[in-house]
């Protein structure tokens, strides 16, 4: 990328300690995020996909420092996020916001919609009067396709899709540059899912937003993303422009993952690469390449050597000894 990236993540790690024994010492570690690096350019959407427990959500939360990372760097428009604290961090959070997966659990049931959306505006002193606050909330509700009179209602009066719209309005209130979308549509029915995806696309165009779109659904990620990063057991195994990744996946895990997605067309018959077994335990991830225990093309040295994420084709990075 020629231009300065908006967000730059370098060798991010998060190891959760497991306490045990007599004095609750740290006995083991979960390697949730184990050296993740990527850049996101302005107005770009980077999709982050992987199966449960691969560390994609933890990565998103570490970037916002909702979870303190163990090590690594995060840069947002040239500012070092890891070194900030207190008020600097708070004002930085104006630039990055998050939308959560569960539209039922992420809205305070005791607050009205106006209070939920307006809270951040007040915290960041973005409005001077009550009247101005209300005007901003009405504007935000209209932006996400809700009615102005919805502001006096409580979250339980809305459907799942509408709640997700409220969550989006709340995130947009402080006019962020980067929006981290953590499985924003996976709790929604397909017809509603499409409404929310279209809304996110419209908002990106309208405000020039940058998205980190975290999801397990490969078809949704492919649809919305400019580039896609695939994670497996805490590491990025492949990162490429969306179409290149889906047309010519290089990593055997990406290939298997793509072939497992059911296609809603009975006339399409594909060869499926069936992965054996389950994802290994991230407490003791396999040595060398984390994927070697399930990999159809693994050779003896895959268990010894860590593959590096290398640019094998222009813009197409893959961490595999034998592909690309």
């Amino acid at each position: 990328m020629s231009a300065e990236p908006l967000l730059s993540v370098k060798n991010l790690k998060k190891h959760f300690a497991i306490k045990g024994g007599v004095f609750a010492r740290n006995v083991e570690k979960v390697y949730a995020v184990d050296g993740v690096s990527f850049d996101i350019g302005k107005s770009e959407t980077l999709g982050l996909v992987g199966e449960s427990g691969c560390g994609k959500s933890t990565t998103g939360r570490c970037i916002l420092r909702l979870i303190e990372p163990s090590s690594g760097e995060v840069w947002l428009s040239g500012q070092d996020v890891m070194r900030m604290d207190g008020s600097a961090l708070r004002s930085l959070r104006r630039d990055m916001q998050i939308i959560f997966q569960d539209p039922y659990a992420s809205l305070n049931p005791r607050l009205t919609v106006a209070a939920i959306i307006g809270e951040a505006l007040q915290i960041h002193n973005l409005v001077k009067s009550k009247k101005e606050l209300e005007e901003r909330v009405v504007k935000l509700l209209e932006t996400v396709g809700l009615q102005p009179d919805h502001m006096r209602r409580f979250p339980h009066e809305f459907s799942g899709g509408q709640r997700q719209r409220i969550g989006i309005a709340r995130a947009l209130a402080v006019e962020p540059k980067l929006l981290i979308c953590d499985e924003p549509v996976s709790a929604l029915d397909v017809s509603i899912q499409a409404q929310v995806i279209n809304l996110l696309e419209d908002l990106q165009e309208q405000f020039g937003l940058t998205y980190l779109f975290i999801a397990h659904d490969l078809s949704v990620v492919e649809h919305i993303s400019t580039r896609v990063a695939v994670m497996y057991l805490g590491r990025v195994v492949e990162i490429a422009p969306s179409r290149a990744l889906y047309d010519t996946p290089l990593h055997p895990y990406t290939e298997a993952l793509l072939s497992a997605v059911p296609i809603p067309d009975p006339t399409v018959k594909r060869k499926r690469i069936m992965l054996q077994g389950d994802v290994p335990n991230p407490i003791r991830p396999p040595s060398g390449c984390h994927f070697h225990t399930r990999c159809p093309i693994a050779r003896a040295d895959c268990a010894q050597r860590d593959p590096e994420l290398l640019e094998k084709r222009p813009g197409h990075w893959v961490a595999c000894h034998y592909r690309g």
Partner: protein
Amino acid sequence: MAETLLEIRGLKTWFKTDDGMVRAVDGVDLHIDRGETVGVVGESGCGKTVTARSVLKLIDMPPGRFEDGSILWRGRDLIPLAADEMDKIRAREIAIVFQEPMTSLNPVYTVGDQIAEVLRQHQQLNRKQAIDAAVEMLRLVNIPNPGKRVHDYPHQFSGGMRQRVMIAMALSCKPKLLIADEPTTALDVTIQAQILELMQEMKEKLGMSIMLITHAMGVVAETCQRVVVMYAGKVVEEAPVEALFGNPRHPYTQGLIRSIPRVDRAAEQKQRLEAIAGTVPSLLEPPPGCRFAARCKFAMDVCTKAMPPLKEVGPGHFVRCVL
């Protein structure tokens, strides 16, 4: 013509709540023939799960009640059947696999005990024989090292392995019909592929029929021969799988198919998704006409006046729409 195993006619399963009567299933007709996999699709609250549970009479009554209709199992109506008669149908003739492999196993018993319990209840086996049979079932569903795993507790299994245990349990009495209620929804996509393949393999080995309840159109396209689409307690379309995806006739089915992004179309021009506007109507007092009318872009005056009947538009292709 294949033998019809299950025939549901005009089924109405309603629930009494403080706010009034919820018409969860409101006049559903569907049938399943021997050896067939039938998909029942629809979004949350369309009545697909209640239909499935009604077949095994797993609905709490009250608040639920069968308002009308019949459920014919090989010609015999299950609705008036006494509890002990129903026990002979469950597991032996019709078995069910639930969505949540985490919550549908008892955490304080070993999986072996839980499979053996089903076997001992329905077949004259002693404890030793039942455990041996449980080991065989675990082997059948490809759980590695079944002789040892049979003594493990549910928490020692991963999500995919638990779903295999659930399938082993459901198939232990060799049922003729397996009802799978969102069997892969809680699973990752690579594990989902494993479970769907297992179900297909089991179907061929045991010669049973499957009623697959799901909201995932992709899963339906890959596993079913015939599909029933439900919306707000009603069947809106029924067709062989090729016809449903190749030539969907109901505007709701069309919307469902077009609203999903497709990975296999990555190379083509990216299109905006076609969302269906609005949300599912309340089942408390459903409007008199077509239940989809409020969200339908083709809706006309007549649509809000009377419920359109299911009409045949092609071989085995039925649609509930005036168009």
